[in-house]
């Protein structure tokens, strides 16, 4: 897929809560690049003193009707603190699209997301549903207020929730959710590393095909600097930015 350095205009900035904003962006030249669920963008943050490099943000959703790209931003550092405050109408420069995304299989598919990790699953769920899959979302968070875009997810599949405080859905971690008793053809997961490893070990035990989306500290985002490596079975150290961020757990050297 061809990569672009492109200016986007912020058409909407939805403050989901204290920690999260949903940015909706339109390409200034009107031409939205092709992209695939699980890919990400590198955003240039113009107004943050303490942000030198771009910030990798996974693609939350592609609204083809409104020609809008959605990015779900979590306030993590100074860069994202400025990003979630971006006023409508302002410009963001992005390198887009980056990385290899999730595979689009058929059948009964469970998408598991934790925290901001739910972001890529919305776009993925939509594509899978349009492909005719039976999509289930298992979404986890600390508490009710930390669950994001539930109404959006509902459009594309069954919703199963886990919260650590039990304020909604089942109490506990996603890995304890009863939906995991059922069988699936594929599990695709994005969230904190411990969660993904726990999901991976369950998938392996139950012999379910499983993909996870990894994070790593990235500089270039295009596989040039070799900073963001993950050790793989097939080819040793590969770039999370270029050969990932999505990996099949069978290609990872995780001790699970």
């Amino acid at each position, binding site marked *: 897929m*061809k*990569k*672009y*350095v492109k200016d986007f205009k912020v058409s909407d900035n939805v403050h989901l809560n204290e920690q999260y904003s949903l940015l909706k962006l339109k390409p200034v030249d009107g031409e939205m690049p092709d992209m695939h669920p699980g890919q990400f963008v590198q955003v*240039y943050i113009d107004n943050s003193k*303490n*942000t*030198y*490099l*771009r910030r990798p943000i996974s693609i939350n959703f592609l609204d083809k009707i409104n020609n809008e790209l959605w990015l779900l931003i979590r306030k993590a550092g100074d860069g994202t603190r400025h990003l979630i405050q971006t006023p409508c109408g302002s410009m963001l420069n992005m*390198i887009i699209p980056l990385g290899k995304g999730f595979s689009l299989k058929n059948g009964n598919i469970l998408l598991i997301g934790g925290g901001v990790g739910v972001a890529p699953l919305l776009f993925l769920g939509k594509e899978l549903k349009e492909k005719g899959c039976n999509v289930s979302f298992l979404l986890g968070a600390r508490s009710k207020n930390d669950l994001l875009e539930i109404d959006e997810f509902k459009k594309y599949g069954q919703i199963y929730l886990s919260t650590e405080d039990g304020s909604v859905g089942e109490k506990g971690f996603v890995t304890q959710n009863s939906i995991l008793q059922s069988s699936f053809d594929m599990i695709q997961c994005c969230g904190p590393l411990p969660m993904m490893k726990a999901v991976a070990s369950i998938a392996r035990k139950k012999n379910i095909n499983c993909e996870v989306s990894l994070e*790593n*500290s*990235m*500089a*270039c*985002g*295009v*596989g*040039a*600097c*070799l*900073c*963001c*490596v*993950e*050790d793989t079975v097939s080819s*040793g*150290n590969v770039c999370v930015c*270029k050969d990932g961020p999505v990996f099949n757990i069978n290609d990872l050297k995780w001790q699970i």
Partner: protein
Amino acid sequence: MANLSVKIGNIELKNPVMTASGTFGYGEEYADFIDLSKLGGFVVKGTTIHHREGNPYPRMVETPSGMLNAVGLQNHGIDYFIDSIYPRIKDIDSQIVVNVSGSDVSDYVAVCEKLQPLDRINAVEINISCPNVKHGGMAFGTTCAGAESVVKAVRNSYSKTVIVKLSPNVTDIAEIAKAVEAAGADAVSLVNTFLGMAINVETRKPYLSTITGGLSGACIRPIAVRMVWQVSKAVSIPVIGLGGIMNGRDAIEFLLAGATAIQVGTANFIDPTVTIKIIEYIEDYMIRHRVDNIYELIGGMKI
């Protein structure tokens, strides 16, 4: 139209803008963003005699106006480069320079001898300044004797243009530059990264798996400009300047300090099209300042 072409050893660059080793992959990674044939040249990433997996991650941490990296020369080795990569990039109409690293002198020689026959590779950049490898690397670059030993051996085994990349982690970089000039280098490139480190105070662990790494980015530019100025006064071979060049203004600053060509590194990560913007800025600057030949700018600082 102003003349931007410069000569480094026996190779001619259509303009003084190159990309720095390890920041531009093999060029291909940036083909979606820019026309690679517009570049004066590009330096492909550090190549060693054998395949190297590099260092464990984490390999990178952002710092004020810069970044620390600890890649550790991950590459597939010279044979893989010649068999699998060279055929893909050899027809790019730009000067392709291969950055060569090694653990001991014979490694450097072996790699250069394998590069000698390649028609489209007419220069090597000898890396005696990598801070991220246990053996060789910077060890060669921090003493005149160490630098000499590598350059002499390479010079005797490689007949094309030899560029030597110098380490800034020294008391007197001009002395090192003079030593490599005497040993037969056709040009020097400086600066490689500064040895630095950063600690996560919550975990109390270093951010890099190797504890220390190489600092690059705009933060080091004032030191790099000073070193380019000192070296260009000390040697008569061309100096290639790099270190925190983010835009056209910075590139001109290095030329005025004495650089015959410049390399863009970390800035490629922030703007993959920055090299083209720099070339356009230089062309515009030369028109604004009525400079017909780029050589009028080289070392043109007014004291």
